[in-house]
């Protein structure tokens, strides 16, 4: 029984190294933007499951290989497929005037971009919102 559970170790490695670690380190920009550590760990997990499978064919090694691959493919699909965006048609290009606008802030007060002209530089960030 003990060895059967050990057979599933690559699956756990894939789960922890892929999705879990990615979301745990979401606030580290290079992890978030490249997913490099996660991809490396997933590769190791798949290799491990594959070696195990080739050494001894059994329901457990097959299950481990299938599940490890499923986690790896699922993570790569969500991260690079589902999350990818169509090409943007930017309405404010470098060297041109930023389109002026007026929007309510978190206190309901109107904020006018041009009111900062001559006073402050602006880092204008668009984000997806809280959900």
């Amino acid at each position, binding site marked *: 029984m003990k060895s059967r559970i050990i057979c599933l170790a690559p699956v756990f490695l894939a789960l922890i190294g892929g999705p879990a670690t990615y979301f745990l380190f979401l606030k580290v920009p290079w992890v978030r933007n490249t*997913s490099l550590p996660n991809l490396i760990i997933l590769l190791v997990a798949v290799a491990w499951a594959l070696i195990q499978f080739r050494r001894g064919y059994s329901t457990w090694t097959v299950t481990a290989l299938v599940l490890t691959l499923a986690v790896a493919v699922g993570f790569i699909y969500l991260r690079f497929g589902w999350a990818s*965006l169509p090409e943007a048609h930017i309405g*404010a290009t470098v060297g041109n005037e930023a389109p002026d606008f007026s929007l309510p802030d978190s206190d309901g007060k109107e904020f006018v971009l041009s009111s900062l002209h001559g006073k402050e*530089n602006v880092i*204008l960030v668009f984000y997806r919102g809280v*959900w």
Partner: protein
Amino acid sequence: MSSIKELGARLVAVSADSIESLKVFRGKKLTSDVTLLSDSKCQVISRYGVIHPDGHGGGDIARPATFVIDKQGVVRWVKVTPNVMERPAPEEVIGALKGTLKGSQ
């Protein structure tokens, strides 16, 4: 955050969230140095060309994008990522801001 202020810049963040959700967001973890704006009809988001139509089934929202605008109101740096999980790194934006300052002096 403090370095943005020291560089004479203001951080302005726009999303399609309502004023009510901005209030909750602000209350949770933000300093007063960030101006949060509500563009619930996605008018400004569309004008800047950074809309993600029906963002994964949750209605129109903004896609991650950052613009550095100088004191004259001119766009000096733009970064729009090709993926919802990717954002410009803070150092990248600060670097662009510093470049803007050098250019305008």
